[in-house]
């Protein structure tokens, strides 16, 4: 049975997950549920960087995989990093079960701008589709409007759409129903 589960990592706003679930169902055509459990990511905090190591969180998330779950997506308000990069918007296990996205650098406040909840939701959806795409074996797409396009700045995220391009869709199609 195909199922996407959403896991709050740290103090993720319930409204983010609430909005995200139906949108992901619409995009991937599978059921999406929000877990009541919550992952406390303090173990992954780097004291000097004050950032959380996404790779370690992904490893810890394995324990939350339900037998009927197909993909598990963590949502966090915290700033994520991998050792070699200054930050990441998210990380996924390529062709694996777990992925995580962070809203930390998607917020307008991060850039000293007034909050914009709708814009944040939209960016989060794009990044959620992006990381889930990786778990379905997709790599970055050359089409800059496709959510699978590489985007390391919000400007590039804002250029993208929420729907996978035909090529990425065809490649990932059926993964959920194998």
């Amino acid at each position, binding site marked *: 049975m195909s199922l996407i589960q959403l896991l709050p990592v740290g103090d993720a706003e319930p409204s983010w997950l609430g909005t995200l679930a139906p949108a992901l169902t619409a995009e991937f055509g599978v059921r999406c549920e929000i877990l009541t459990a919550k992952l406390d990511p303090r173990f992954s905090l780097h004291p000097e960087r004050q950032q959380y190591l996404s790779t370690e969180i992904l490893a810890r998330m394995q324990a939350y995989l339900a037998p009927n779950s197909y993909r598990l997506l963590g949502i966090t308000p915290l700033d994520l990093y991998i*050792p*070699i990069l200054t930050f990441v918007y998210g990380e996924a296990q390529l062709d694996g079960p777990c992925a995580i996205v962070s809203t930390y650098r998607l917020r307008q406040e991060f850039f000293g701008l007034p909050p914009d909840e709708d814009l944040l939701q939209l960016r989060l959806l794009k990044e959620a589709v992006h990381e889930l795409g990786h778990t379905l074996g997709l790599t970055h797409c050359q089409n800059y409007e496709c959510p699978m396009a590489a985007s390391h700045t919000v400007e590039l995220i804002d250029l993208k759409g929420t729907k996978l391009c035909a090529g990425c869709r065809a490649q990932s199609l059926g993964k959920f129903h194998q």
Partner: protein
Amino acid sequence: MSSKGNILIVDDELIVRDSLGRWFCDEGYEVGTAGSAREALNLVAQQPWDLALLDIKMPGTDGIELQRRLREIKPNLIVIIMTGYASVDTAVTALKNGAYDYVVKPFDPDEITHTVQNALSHRRAEQENVRLREAVAEVARPPELIGQSTAMKRVFEAIVTVGPTEATALITGESGTGKELVARAIHAASPRKYNRLVVIHCGALAETLLESELFGHEKGAFTGAQYRRKGSFETADGGSVFLDEIGDISLKTQTDLLRVLQEREITRVGGNQSIHVDFRCIAATNKSLEKLLEEGLFRPDLYYRLNVFRIELPPLRDRREDVPLLVEHFIRKFSGSMNKRVGSVSREAVDKLQHYGWPGNVRELENAVERAMVVAQEGELGEKDFSLTLASSESADQTLEEAERAHILRVVEACGGNQTQAATVLDIDRVTLHNKLKKYGWKRTPVESP
């Protein structure tokens, strides 16, 4: 989906290999990792790689040494050095050894993406243009950059090394040693060669003029600014900017220049908008920047920005063995334009030229050959053909006027009384020569008619 390229990551830290490896996989690259130089060399021997990211600090063979070996076995492999801290020294060593670039850990995701993409696309463009590049490389070394001396070989190597990188190059050397030629060669050896090289002689311009030359100006910025004008950094537009006589610029202009080098942004004189500019900087000086630093006449931060990769051009007196080659070259060059059949130069003349001090360096030698050819008969350039240009440096007890008189008369005699020809040799106009000859009481010696 086809791979965007093969990347080899070499780092002794597992976590770096893992996280960077996975990240590049997501980006669509084929990735291999090695935990040591030995592993890396094995992998390089087994399969082709487009690009290698090398950690500079590894136990045993470090990144710099590994890069040196890789360069021998796989000269086409693009190497990017990863360093844990911003160290100009290591960066310079890496660039000198031919690294494409260096990145400081941790990387900004956007920046590393661009660095890798640019490196690969430059290489692809190069591969597509191998032929063209070879043709350009021929042109790339200007014919005047001639020499087989060790000092010049070092210069050629430096050009080949730094040319293809983005590093700022600082060329030092006395006047007339050919600093602009080196700048042109560096530009021609770079991926920016299809764009312009903008040359600015900083010492020749007053401060305000230089500023408008470098940064451009808006209409009405100052009296006479009737039109908006783009400056050098803007017109370079993907090319290079050559700043000659960088030691001559004022502290104020140095401050502005520093900003451009750091931010890659300019503001036109009289304007308030920041404009992004894309250029590679090549600078040259015949003054000692170190001395100017000590005297407080040069900003240290600008000095460090400029002094990333240094090429020192030797004075001609320090490479006398190159004199015969240069003379031959200039003879060929001028015999074409003068339509004169001078094929060679006598042994005695060469000897004399090799022992001269050449305070004006190659440029002075070029002028000397040109003048000798004006006065020479067809055939061979002899010692006497050079006497006009070199002899004056021998007597030290003459007044300037005496020396001038003797020199002018010698030249005119050597030209068989032909004042037009003599004026050319002396590099003065005919009227001036005529007046001087009148003053010195020169009388044309009667020429026998045939």
